[in-house]
């Protein structure tokens, strides 16, 4: 089910809004995709959560990874087309970003953490979130699963650290 935002009209996010930190804004906002539904907002929240995780391991958010190797014509400040049309050009940047984060993460938590970041930060809004969750009848953009995953990974890391000491 898709929930409709209270305004009930397509809304283009104002990227020149001074209160907005574009370093962490989801790419669909940078590329001015209309934020129509409440799901769109949830998807943006998930991206930001993932971007914080990326920051913790690489010292830059996901947006810096997406923008660093992109040809200028595909950069959000030059792109004139729809978000759907630019997605194919963001896919290689996303793959590189995941690869870089993967290199920066300890092998102990790598697979699960990278899997989560891949779900949280996918530039394609339709692929963001836990698709398996959706199939199980749970809210796709639910954060709970990710919170418990991060908790578990933190405990695992602490435990490993204690053993090491």
């Amino acid at each position: 089910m898709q929930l409709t935002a209270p305004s009930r009209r397509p809304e283009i996010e104002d990227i020149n809004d001074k209160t907005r930190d574009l370093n962490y804004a989801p790419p669909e906002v940078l590329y001015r995709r209309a934020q129509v539904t409440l799901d769109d907002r949830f998807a943006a929240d998930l991206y930001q959560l993932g971007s914080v995780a990326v920051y913790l391991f690489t010292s830059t958010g996901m947006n810096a990874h997406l923008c660093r190797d992109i040809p200028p014509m595909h950069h959000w400040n030059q792109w004139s087309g729809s978000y759907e049309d630019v997605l194919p050009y963001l896919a290689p940047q996303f793959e590189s970003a995941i690869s870089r984060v993967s290199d920066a993460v300890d092998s102990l938590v790598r697979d699960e953490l990278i899997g989560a970041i891949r779900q949280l930060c996918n530039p394609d809004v339709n692929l963001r979130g836990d698709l398996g969750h959706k199939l199980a009848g749970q809210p796709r953009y639910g954060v709970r699963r990710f919170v418990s995953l991060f908790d578990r990974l933190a405990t695992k890391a602490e435990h490993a650290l204690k053993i090491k000491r």
Partner: protein
Amino acid sequence: MTAQAHDGSRRMLPRWRYGSRAELTAEYAGPPVSQHRTIDHGPLNEAIARFKRVANAITASEAVETAVVYGQLNLAEDAAHWLLNHPDTVAKDLLVLSQEALSPKTFNTLPASIDTVSEARRIVAANRRILRTYPRNVGRWLDLSRAYAVLGLPDQSWKSMEVALSLAPTHRVTQRVAGRLLVHLHKADEAYQLVVRNAITEYDPWLMAFEIALSDLLKQSPRFIKQARRFLRDSVVPPAHVSELASAFGTWQFRTGDVKGARKSFRLAGIAPTENTLAQLQWMNQKDSAIVLPKEQNYESSFAAEARCWRALQASKWESALRAAKEWQQDEGFSGRPAIVASYVALSILRDYEEAIRACKQGLNADSGDQLLRNNYVVALAKSSQIDTAIEEFVKIQEPYQAGYFPFVRMATAGLLAFGIGDADLGTKLYKKAAEVAEGENRLLVLAHQFNAECTFLNINNGDLEKEVRIRLEDMKDPIAKAAARSALDEGQSLIALHTSDVTKKIEATLKLSHRFDHLVLSFDKST
């Protein structure tokens, strides 16, 4: 014998390269707009100002990161230098980012030399593996499809393309390369349906250009010709967006007899040409020298191999033409067209049969159905004294014959093979027939090749035939046909000379032997 340099036509079909090699023309930008939106760079300026006030790891990192996000790396050079001078204060990845910020980036270039088949195999292996993790990456499906096309696996190529099309069904680039693949698979009608069904075609100059080119290929009237005319007349979009449309439109005007209109369209096409447009203009310039060619610097791009090839052919610079054709073949490894040109120049003008066979083999590996290319291969094999293989290959060319594979070429090649197996009567008959059906300068070309074939296989110096061709050689207008005819005559002459010197050498050797024998007999007599 005769080979063929091209099928007599060139259309504005889209280029199809691997994603990392595509020439990033306006085709890859969004829809054409007259001006871009304004971006407030306030947050970036603030981050840089903070770094300037207090330079530390936090402010420097923030300045570099914000500059990357805003696409203004040059503004964060000081911060990047600071981070590189304090490597212990920040994460390794941020240092790499800082280094990137300080070095200029180049996007998508063509490698100087590469084995396209091995490369295609590598791309297939890598993409099949990565697509398991990222199954919705359209670019990877397109690359996979192209790699399969280079390997001559049309079914796999189309299957991958279908996935790409299902993921981005109306995307301009996907549509154009899918159409290009269909043309390669000899399904131009399906390509046409694909393009005209797309709702954006009547607004998009790139798809309109493709629709016109496909209509030309299918010998039908373009559906969007009015829209194209209006777009070219009224649109205020940057010239880079209309270059291919103007070129396709101009080609259509030229074909329908509106030469003046065509010249005007080509002038518009040449303002900000893609390399594809450049090649088209160079090609059309052979037919009408009044068509204005773009500036010299456009030919310097590594992508412009085809344009350089046509230009070198027009200027009778054969070595340069062969070099450019090989670059073009490397660039469009899935297509038979560059292989046809490369093999023709090597075979008919430079007489480098090994090179011709190499070009043909590579081309046929990707496009085994190209009859023109196979014909060139047959001729190259025959000229390399591999008559049996040449006949095996010639038998593979079956009806229906592709457009541009002229009957006189087929007959002359059959004549060459007849001479090759020693059937002089049949060879002469076939060449005669070929000369009858060949039109204009092609007739002279057939006669020159007949002379060459007789010299090669029968060791006959047909002086009358040579005289007839030599007299009219200077009147030939097409520089490629002229060079090929001259080369055929010259090679024939040198072969005869070689045969003659061979015979002389044999006689001399026999005399020497007999002299030795005489001497031996004499000394034997003396001793006894």
